């Protein structure tokens, strides 16, 4: 909070982008009752989905992205060397040495939007859904954390990967909407890839679906898959990161 005015401005601009997207979604619902025929994503459930995305992205943007975005420069200038000689885990230091609390503004609005949407559901979610929801939020954060660390590992190996970080924002763009929109001859393979290979569609869809739609056999399967994907994502990211460090050659003299 050293620069309070700057902090407030960043919160405001972040809220501005979010408001613009919410206005876009409201405009869409002027023309259609739901996103995808028979998908169940009518207005209130869809806004619960959007709110879930806001909360998860706010956590990731606050805790991990500021540190990860500095990694390229640290590798180039040799700042990574000073991290590696410290008596603390390098992955922990590199992924959490800087926070951006202005990103939490979107998260707080997400919580408010979620409450607004859930109160307007035609059928209240069961208690088990409310108990699972925060756990699945944590799983979504863990999956994104794993992706960030694997990109960071690529930075260490390649030295310069600005295009890879652009890739992060483009690939997470697929998680902005319900998985049901990806259907058809092109949509089905894309949905499969983004569910089982890069599990980006599990991040928001599963926690939001737990609240917004009745829990069934398939949805329980997705819950289990999300837990497994979170563990796998963090585990794989650890392996990738350690392998990248093993191949690192210092940039400093």
């Amino acid at each position, binding site marked *: 909070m050293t620069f309070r005015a700057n902090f407030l401005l960043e919160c405001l601009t972040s809220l*501005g982008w979010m408001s613009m997207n919410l206005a876009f979604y409201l405009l869409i619902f002027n023309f259609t009752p739901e*996103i995808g025929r028979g998908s169940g994503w009518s207005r209130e459930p869809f806004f619960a989905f959007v709110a879930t995305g806001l909360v998860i992205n706010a956590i990731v943007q606050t805790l991990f992205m500021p540190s990860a975005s500095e990694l390229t420069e640290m590798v180039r200038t040799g700042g990574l060397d000073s991290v590696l000689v410290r008596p603390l885990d390098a992955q922990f230091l590199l992924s959490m040495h800087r926070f951006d609390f202005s990103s939490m503004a979107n998260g707080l609005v997400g919580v408010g939007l979620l409450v607004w949407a859930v109160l307007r559901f035609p059928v209240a979610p069961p208690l088990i859904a409310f108990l699972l929801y925060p756990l699945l939020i944590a799983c979504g954060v863990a999956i994104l954390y794993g992706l960030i660390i694997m990109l960071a590992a690529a930075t260490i190996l390649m030295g310069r990967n600005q*295009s890879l970080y652009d890739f992060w924002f483009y*690939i997470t*763009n697929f998680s902005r*909407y319900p998985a049901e929109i990806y259907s058809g001859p092109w949509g089905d393979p894309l949905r499969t890839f983004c569910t089982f290979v890069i599990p980006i569609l599990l991040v928001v869809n599963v926690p939001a679906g737990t609240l917004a739609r009745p829990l069934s056999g398939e949805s329980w399967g997705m819950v289990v898959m999300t837990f497994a994907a979170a563990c796998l994502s963090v585990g794989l990211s650890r392996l990738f990161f350690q392998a990248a460090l093993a191949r690192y050659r210092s940039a400093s003299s």
Partner: protein
Amino acid sequence: MSEAVNPEVLQSSCGWFPAVRSWWRMLTICLEERLAYRSDFALGTLMRFLPIVTQVFLWTAVFAASSRADIAGYSRDNIVAYYLLTMVTRAFSSMPSLAGGISRCIRDGSVKKYLIQPVDYIGFLLASRVAHKLVYYIVAIIPFAAVLFFCRAYFPPAPDGLTIAAYVLSLLLSFLLGFFLEATLGMIAFWFLEVSSIIFAYMLFQYLLSGHMFPIDMLADIPTGISGVSLADVVRLLPFEYTAYFPAAVWLGKITGWELVRGLLLEIVWLVIAIGTCRFVWWRGTKRYSGFGG
């Protein structure tokens, strides 16, 4: 004893020829600089199409759930074509890092060298941007052509020659309009040293009001409180639509006849205003500039 004046030297030191030669030199230097990162450009260009994939699926799902054949005069195919065409327009009108670069130049004092040298700063920036865009088009033409060819089924038949000429003119004007708007924005740094939040707010309004998110025609049913005036009517009076919506709508045949002529004239008016504002802000800014840093 006085030496005779060499007419060739005399000619080269005055008139329009030195200006054109300087401008050409700036352009070639910037071209060489930009061509140093060709592969990064190409990869980034391809990845910029990824969000459109999401938009295609989103609007397909919207049309599947609604009972409409079209929304605000756009069928599903029209909307996909519209998003692809706005990508083309943005390739002309977007000016990445222009405003930020100018404000940084002013803040750290490096603008001083343009004040003491016989170089027109705005002209130099324009040459630099032309070079940037030329390189971008050279590298991006293949991925753009590939995507447009792959998605050709979404496009209606090609318009007539006059409409194509109007489309090309609107693209060229959108480049100049985008340049002068953002250059003016960057020069606000003469008054406020840190302008990143102002730039961000401008980008936000431009993104919303330019038609980049959705065709502006979709705002036609939203009233403004003034009888007979919709939100779309108000938004279309602003210059932002020319940075994304207008050229795309021209190609798709959504703007024709006198409405097309009126739109192009309004675009030229906005361009003249932007050029005048940019020059005025530069003049006023340099009068109060104190040359910190450097």
